[in-house]
Every structure is written in structure tokens, then in C-alpha cells.
């Protein structure tokens, strides 16, 4: 990942979430020991290493069961394309969960944004109007979530559960439960465009992850997210506007849903109230097996993304081997439990 040049020296010395565990970064702190402490911090950061390990194991399983097919460039890109849409949603979800909340409405928001952006009246204004429409719908619904949670003092679980149901309902009402075909060619082309051999969807995914990583780890917004999620009362008494920040987190999640909606519209050349089905579960599962605390205050974006990749890879292997989707779901459930167990052993 590229660093801003002026931040690079500090980043070198520090590690991203340094010294999170005191035992890993001993007090010494003098120059001689600074490097090891930071390396320990880095390693700790790569606690998601266990997930890399899981990915490697999966890759071996893929090669063993389907030989060259699995490792072919086209299949690897295929995995990345399949991860891209849920991956973008997972970025927003990671922010919300680290900030101490939960967003169950992401699937519904993807559906609503996809339908709203593909209505005939939206399509007639062209591609950019559709993009802006999807983003605004996502952010607007996210803002409603955020305002109800932060200023209406309602529980995130309940607010976003209501939004999950209502947004999909609204999507069904708008589309009359019909699949809306997209006739704007430039939108449909997004999914078929390759840049230097890499699908544009994967590039969008990578860009969202990169921006998300920078915001979470390098900006004051990211710092405040950790503070608000880790100890809301302390953050409030430290002078952080906790309510505004909380509301913004849900807007951010909604924005990610808007981006994901554009991607799914392009990939399927349709808008539909059935898009994004069960995305909330996949995204939350990815965040959790990525090592983020469900209670907030602690977590990494890299872990979440690896979590999403693990899921897609499992699906891919099962599809290559013509196994039924029931078996996939059982395997996914086992992976969630195994990953969390592994991490707990790593922390205590």
C-alpha cells in the first residue's frame, strides 16, 4: 500500500496498531528495543496471519480437488470478482462494528439502491445520474439509520433491522417485484472492462479497501472511530462529538452499499429487489472472522477483507467440484466458529 510521504517515517517506526498488547511490546522503549517492539506490533497486527493460513489451506484444497483449474489466472480473478461486491459492503461494516454498532440493513440498501438507480426515470439521465442516485440512496438511508441511532438513542440492532425490512420492501414496491433491465451501456460495461487484464470491479474493490484502510488508520476520523467504539463514555468526556460520529459511520456504511449497488447492477445488468440477499450476514461474518470485536473498539480492515476472501474461496472450490450449496453453508458455519476459536487462542 502506498503511504503519504510525510507519514511514511512515522508509519515505519510504529506499526499500525502498535503495542496493543503490553506483553508484546515490553516497556523498554529505548532505541535498541524499539524495532522489536514495533515488529511484535506488526506481527500482532497480522494476527490475521491465521486467516492467511486458512486461505493457503483452502488454496491447497482447491488445487488438490480441482487441479490446475483452481490456480488458473481466470479462476483467481473470478474469486476476486465474486468477493468484490460483498467486500465493499464489508469495508463499511468494519467501520460500523469497530465504532461499536452493527448494520443489518446493508443487503436491503444494496437492493433499494440498485432498484432506485435503474428505474426508467433514472436511466434516462444516463450513467452518471444512476451512479449518483445509487450513492445518494445508500447514504440517505444510512443517514436515517445514523440519526435514529445517534440522536434518537435507539439500539442499532433494532433500527437497522427495521431498515433492512423496510428498504427491501420499498425496493419491491418501486420495482413491482420485477427485475429492471439496464439499457445504459456504459454502466453494463463496468463489469466487462479490464484494465491491464484486471477486471474493473476488482479495481474498484481494491480502491475502496485502500481508501477505507487509510481513513481507518491514518485519519482523525479513524482514531475517533476506535475511541467511540472502545469506550463511548470516555470518548464523550474527552470532547468527541460521539453522536455526530456515530451517525457518520452509518452514512459511510450506506455509501459502501451504494457503491456495491452500482457494481451489482453492472454485473447482472439489472436492478432488483432481490439483490444483496443475506449480505448483512456475510459481511458481519467476514468482519468477525477477521478478528474485529463485535463490541467495538478493536479490529482491522485487512482482517475483514481476508474474511470475505475466505468465504468466496470456499464457495469457489465447492462450485468447481459441483458440490451442493447446502454443503457450502455448513462449511461456512464451521469456518466462522473455527476462525473465532483460533483467534481467541491467539489473544488469551
Amino acid at each position, binding site marked *: 500500500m502506498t503511504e503519504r510521504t510525510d*507519514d511514511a517515517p*512515522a508509519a515505519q517506526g510504529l506499526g499500525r496498531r502498535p503495542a496493543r498488547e503490553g506483553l508484546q*511490546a515490553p516497556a523498554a522503549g529505548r532505541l535498541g528495543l524499539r524495532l522489536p517492539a514495533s515488529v511484535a506490533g506488526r506481527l500482532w497486527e497480522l494476527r490475521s496471519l491465521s486467516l492467511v493460513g486458512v486461505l493457503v489451506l483452502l488454496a491447497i484444497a482447491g488445487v488438490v480437488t480441482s487441479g490446475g483449474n483452481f490456480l488458473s489466472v481466470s479462476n483467481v480473478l473470478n474469486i476476486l470478482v465474486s468477493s468484490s461486491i460483498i467486500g465493499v459492503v464489508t469495508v463499511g461494516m468494519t467501520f460500523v462494528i469497530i465504532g461499536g454498532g452493527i448494520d443489518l440493513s446493508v443487503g436491503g440498501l444494496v437492493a433499494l439502491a440498485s432498484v432506485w438507480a435503474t428505474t426508467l426515470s433514472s436511466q434516462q439521465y444516463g450513467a452518471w445520474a444512476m451512479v449518483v442516485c445509487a450513492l445518494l440512496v445508500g447514504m440517505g438511508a444510512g443517514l436515517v439509520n445514523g440519526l435514529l441511532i445517534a440522536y434518537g438513542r435507539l439500539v442499532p440492532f433494532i433500527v437497522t433491522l427495521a431498515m433492512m425490512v423496510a428498504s427491501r420492501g420499498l425496493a419491491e414496491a418501486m420495482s413491482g417485484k420485477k427485475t429492471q433491465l439496464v439499457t445504459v451501456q456504459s454502466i453494463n460495461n463496468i463489469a466487462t472492462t479490464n484494465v491491464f487484464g484486471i477486471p474493473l470491479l476488482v479495481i474498484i474493490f481494491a480502491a475502496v479497501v485502500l481508501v477505507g484502510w487509510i481513513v481507518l488508520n491514518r485519519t482523525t476520523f479513524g*482514531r475517533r472511530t476506535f475511541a467511540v467504539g*472502545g469506550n463511548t463514555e470516555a470518548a464523550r468526556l474527552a470532547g468527541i462529538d460521539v453522536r455526530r460520529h456515530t451517525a457518520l459511520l452509518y452514512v459511510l456504511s450506506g455509501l459502501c452499499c451504494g457503491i456495491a449497488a452500482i457494481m451489482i447492477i453492472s454485473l447482472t445488468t439489472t436492478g432488483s429487489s432481490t439483490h444483496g440477499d443475506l449480505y448483512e450476514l456475510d459481511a458481519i461474518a467476514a468482519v468477525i472472522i477477521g478478528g474485529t470485536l463485535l463490541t467495538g473498539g478493536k479490529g482491522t480492515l485487512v482482517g475483514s477483507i481476508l474474511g470475505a476472501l475466505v468465504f468466496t474461496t470456499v464457495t469457489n472450490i465447492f462450485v468447481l467440484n459441483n458440490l451442493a450449496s447446502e454443503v457450502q453453508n455448513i462449511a461456512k458455519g464451521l469456518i466462522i466458529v473455527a476462525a473465532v476459536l483460533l483467534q481467541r487462542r491467539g489473544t488469551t
Partner: protein
Amino acid sequence: MNALLTVTGLVKSFPGVRAVDGANLDVQEGEVHCLLGQNGAGKSTLIKVLSGAHKPDAGEISWRGSPVSFASPLAALRAGLATIYQELDLVDGLTVAENIFLGHEHSALGFSRRRAAAEAATALLSRLGHGEISPTRLVGSMSAAGKQIVSLARALSHNARLIVMDEPSAVLDSGEVDNLFRVIAQLTAQGVAIIYISHRLDEIRVVGDRVTVLKDGKTVASGLPAKSTPTADLVRLMTGRDTEYAFPARPAGQHTGRELLTVRDISRPGEFTGVSFTVHAGEIVGLAGLVGSGRSEIVETVYGARKPAAGQILVDGRRLRPGSVPAAVRAGMGLCPEERKSQGLLLYEAVYRNVSVSSLARYSRGGFVARSRELADVAKAIGDLDVRPSDPRRAVRTLSGGNQQKVVLARWLLRDCRLLILDEPTRGVDVGARGELYRLIRELAGSGVGVLLVSSEIPEVLGLADRVLVVRAGRLLHDGPAAQLTETAVLDMVMEGAAA
């Protein structure tokens, strides 16, 4: 009297620390044995080993004459050794009786026998002199003092022979402490022994029989008579210093600093009424009052964490937006809250992130955190306060109580805060670190910061503050120079409300 518990040469290490390094302790039936020591002296680790929460690396524990090694807190409890921690482990949503018998309920075929449990609970509470507590009352609706009684009853329900109490008085006001001492007296009369841990030497005088002093994980003195050992000796054993409270000298003469904070007639129904006072630059104003007198509510309202129903708060003569912490912080206020862990610290995070959390805007370059500058400034701030260890990247939860308090102070130092509100700044801070905090607070005032100090320890308010406000039942009773007040006079006002 017979030896109930004998500990010899106990050692317990954690990676990087020898928390207990040769501790000895002997407790006899029916005595109150006080455990003294600074924070980090190993008291907590010692009692965790005793209660079965940690396994010792070396040493012997003998319980009622035979060597034991408790595998878990439950095993210790079954053997008759109960521990009551500061954070009481009761379930708020259950009743008194349900809490007392949690884990060993009265039941028949899986159905709870509620009447039998209620009767047994009342019997246990009566043994503590509190038969009036209803066994069907929800624990969540009780005060900290009431919950402590329930915890004691729970210990008795396991036929405890020894009850370890970790700073039981920290959450109590002085009337409740007296009651606790009566309860302890009843227990010891029944042959139950108590290990009593407290930072307050005056309490140990009243309640204790014998004292064991720990320093750096070692027992430095044991079996001292609690009533007659001179304070100077105890303090010297704990710290190597000679006085319990070392207050820095007040600067001579009256304060000429300009008026920084003006509070005009603020009220919140049910909490406080018509409170007015001022704080000048460079002045330490102490707010004395019992728990529940409204003192914490008053400072939280000044800080914007609560919204006043009436009245005005002005900083530099400009009216502050009511009920907004960010507005108060922008105006130059800072708060070190009463509950350091739950209200002050970001426990998952490193020291530097805890210090800079209120100053992020200052280190923001287009939204990005300028981290080298941030780290350099934090390192300087924690260096100025002598936080130990001085590594800004250390996890904040590995620091001792006193150092954690300094981290919260450093947060406001970094912001160049002009009005510092300190709510119980020395709670859970050991004697040695207290003196240092007092000196730091005085130095801050010397540099022109106005300080509003809340404390339930009257000597602290009198010793540190320039001017003292006394609150009782939500009203300000007194406002005058600290030098003209005595501890008894303040105590009198706090308890009786006789205006001076």
C-alpha cells in the same frame, strides 16, 4: 485463636513482572487482618492467588492446618474462602435472594423454591445486622453499600471462614463505612476472619486487628498491631517516605488571577439547586461533599455532560452552550472523571492514543493524523508528568492506577487546557503516587490553570485547595478560603448542614 490461613514464600510471576515475590501472611480465626501496600505492591495478585484465580509459581498456602492449592475461585469458595472485589459481581436484574444463592440455588426437581430461599436469605442478612433488606428486592435498585451487604451474605451462604475485601470503602460515604465496620464486627464475633485491603490508614485504625505490609511483592512487616503502630512507621514501610499526605505549599497571598469560570445559579431538579461559584486562573477550588450530595452532578453539568435546567455557565465571561461537552472542551475545559476506567480511558489503546484523543483536531492535516508530531508532543507531556513507564506506545491498561490518572491528566496538558476539573483524582491511587499528583496539580495551577477539585476525602480538599466549596443535599453551603477551615468544621457542614 487458631491459624486459619498461612502463606509462606509465595511467588507469582507474569511475563516481565514478578508481581508477588516472597509474600508471607498469616490470618487467625475471627480477626480483621489488614493488607497494606502501594499500588503495584502485589496485593491484588496475592489475593487472586489466594482465591484460586491464579496459580502460584512457588510457596505454600496452608488452609485450616493443611496445605492446599485451589484450582478455581469456586474451589476456594467451597472451602470457605470468599473474595469480594471492588467491582461487585452481582447480577443487577436478579433479586437479593437470587443473587445470594446464585450457583447453589434452593431448588426441587429443577424448580426454584423461592420461599425457602427468601427465608434463608433473610437469615443470612440478619447475621449481618441487615434483616430489614427484602430478599425480593432487585439488586440493581440498591446502593453500592447495599450491594456490598448482599455480597457478604453471598459469602456467608457458602459458609465462608475467611472473607477477603478489596477496598470495600472506596465506593461508600462515611456513614456507610461506619455501618460496614459494624457488619465486620458482627462477622468477626461469629469467628469469621476478614482480610481488609484499603488505602485509608484511618480506617485500618478503626477496623483492623493486625497489619501485614507488602512492598514490591514482598512482605516487609507482618502481624503489626493495627491500632497502635504509628502511622509514620506504616507509611515508611510502604513507601520509604515519612508522611501520609504531602501537600505542596500554597503560594503566598491572595489570588489575583482573572475570573475564568463563572457559574450562575445553575439547577437540575432532584440533583442540585441554585449553585453559583467562580474559579480564577491559577486557583484550586475544592468541592467537598458526600457521595450523593450532588457534587459530581454539579461538575458534570459545568463540563456540559449534563444540561442545566436553569442558570448560566460562563468561561472568560462568555456564555457556554449548555449541555455540550465539545463546547466546554473548546472553551478550554478538561475533565478527569471519577471512574477512570469506565469514563476516562480507552483501555484497548496505547498511551499516546489516550493522550491525544482530545487534541486530534490539532494534529489533523487535512484529516490525516500527523503522527510524528503527535508522538513527540505526547512523549513530552507524559515526560513532564513522569508517567512510568514513559513509553507512549505502551498499552494503557498495563499501567498502574496512578500512572493511568497521569495519562488522563496528560490528555488535557496536551491541549493547553485552562480549566481542569478533577473528580476524585486520587481514588485508587497509592500514597506515594498521591503526593506526586498533588504536586503536579499545584504546579499546573502555578502555571495559570484554574482547577476545580472534587474529593470525598476532606483532608485532600483542605490540604490542596485554595478555596473550598461545601455541598450538601444539592445546595452550596459554604464558599471560603481553605486556610480558615478545619476538617471537623467541614465534616460538620457536610453531615449536618450547619452553615458556618
